[in-house]
């Protein structure tokens, strides 16, 4: 059995691997860990274990799904619950989040990778100063 401390580390490392971005915020990682643990329990633990013991992370479909939603979480801070999983992965469907999920803090949202990727800023947190939007992004 790996200790929680170790699992947290593995999750952080796995996250970095999945999104290929090094400076993920540890505080957010630890928070996501708790969310995932609560919702996905053993499946989540086994994903981390397999990852740690060198089994290919993408092996089973359920692990692939978990990986997918971890990536989605880091990008958008939107947390997909078990009951939403099928519809989230249904390629024929426009996924509409039904259950409202409210994080305890805005920090995960502010750290969403999607904003960085599109060279904007989280909506609701200014990108700088009056008029910056007239120019190309600085970052």
């Amino acid at each position, binding site marked *: 059995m790996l200790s929680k401390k170790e699992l947290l580390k593995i999750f952080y490392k796995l996250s970095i691997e999945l999104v290929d971005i090094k400076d993920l915020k540890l505080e957010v990682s630890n928070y996501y860990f708790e969310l995932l643990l609560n919702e996905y329990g053993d499946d989540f633990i086994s994903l981390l274990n397999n990852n740690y013991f060198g089994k290919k992370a993408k092996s089973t479909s359920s692990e692939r799904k978990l990986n997918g939603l971890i990536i989605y979480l880091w990008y958008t801070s939107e947390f997909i619950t078990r009951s939403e999983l099928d519809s989230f992965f249904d390629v024929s469907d426009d996924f509409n989040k039904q259950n409202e999920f*409210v994080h305890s803090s805005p920090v995960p949202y502010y750290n969403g990778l999607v904003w960085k*990727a599109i060279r904007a800023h989280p909506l609701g947190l200014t990108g700088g100063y*009056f008029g910056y939007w007239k120019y190309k992004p600085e970052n």
Partner: protein
Amino acid sequence: MDKIKNKKYDYIIVGSGICGSIAAYFLAKFNKTVLLLEAGETRDKDRIEMSGRYARTSRKTPGSPYVKENQFADSPDFHENIKNNNSEKNKNFYVFDIENNKFKNVFKSTYQRITGGSTWHWLGNVPRFIPSDFKMNSIYRVGKDWPITYHDLETYYCIAENEIGVSGNHEKWNKYLGAYRSKSFPMSEIWECYADTLFIKKVDGKSINGKEIRILPTPQARNSENYDGRPACAGNSSCVPICPIQAKYDATVHIKKALKTGNVDIIDNAVVNKLIENENKEIIALSYLTLNNNKVEIDTKTAKVILAANSIEIPRLLLNSGIANSSDQVGRNLMDHAQGYVTALTNEKIYPFRGPLTTSGIDAFRDGEQRKELSAFRISIGNDGWGRIKSPNAVVRELIIKENLLGSKLYNAVEEKVTRMIRMSYSTEVLPNKNNRVTLSDIKDNIGIRKPKISFNISKYNADAFEVAKEVCTKIFNEVGVSELSTNDNRDYSGAGHIMGTTCMGNDPEKSVVNDYGNSHDNHNLYIIGPSVFTTSGTANPTLTAVALTIRTIDHLLNNKITKNEV
């Protein structure tokens, strides 16, 4: 509270939205005493916390910052977000009459009940109506004529722009579409976003469908400099649903100013549910419900009552009270702007989601002969990707589940796509129609007041305009250089949140609810302000016009002290 209850006021205003609070401010400024009754709660101090709630929730709607446990006065905006609303009875805030609806959508426009009203979540675009909007019947033989003209309102437009704090370009707007401006905007325009600069380069000045295309900076209730003690817009890009720094105007500005005069009292969490008249058709009392469902009655014999509770709640209150409806027009002629969109990916990256959600528009199609047959429309250029059609999150999801991307490939693919996403939306004019209406449902809301029942259908006049608007947007996009053009199904339009027309004004007491000053034809001490008094809806966002009309009403009540003071 008792002190307030027993005090005699010159005016009692129901609703502290933009119209109610500006009315209160001007009355108080000229030494009238005012009681402001507000259904919602006062939450000025929660601005940052509410911005945080928006960030925390996974459902980002115009109401999401404002959700609170045990909301007292419900509204469509809150309702959408509350949990456990799955029972059929409670699913929607409105009760819909959908039997005859050939369109896919029901009426979706929302409003807010909070001190300050719906301007908390509005976008803040404030173009004026144009002169022909007031004369639809005499010029185009459709709709109705207003009892007033653009000219009657022009001075009040200037005062309204000054009060709200509007940023705009006077040179570009003065006399455009016949709308002269006697004063320039109090602030210069909000800078256009990066995408607009591309539109300006590629299409400005070209002719499309016989009209010269001008990419115009939309006048906005958003600061381009420090104004009224509020900061310049810093591009938080969350105007809908909340501006964290109040660079966007909301009505708490005027509530604060009104309270500062010392002539105004405000009671929040007070849902007015009944007006009572005597045999002389005088409103002698009104009652409201408070937090513990206590009912309070207020004597209004020596006061004038002004309803400013918005275009759904005003008819709801009047119908519930059986008042001011000898014309049978209360609740009828419900209007909105029926909207559709065209989306695309630009060849060049345009980096959306930076700055206000839209900064420019194309107004050339807001007038012209075609209005005889089909609606005019206003086009706005989005700065928010595909808006409600597809969010950046949805793009991320698609790339993960359909393309199996991860790591830097995903990152680059997200950038590649989202930085090119653009939409143009068009808003068409819904003509007044007696069958589009608000009535009372037998179902009651959480505090026992009958819910508003909505019948709303749009006509061929709009559907035909959708076709033309799509064609125009497509041509414009082709000039700009895009791929993946896509538009909505014509039966699938959306509302604009511009709820108008349910207590329309007119000269004929048999065909209208109020006169041009908003005075009820039936009840002489009853006034109505807000977009509900509109005769027709034009294609401009309604609120500036509603405020100009409000100031005109109050000026009338103050024997023109406002306009005299201006001079």
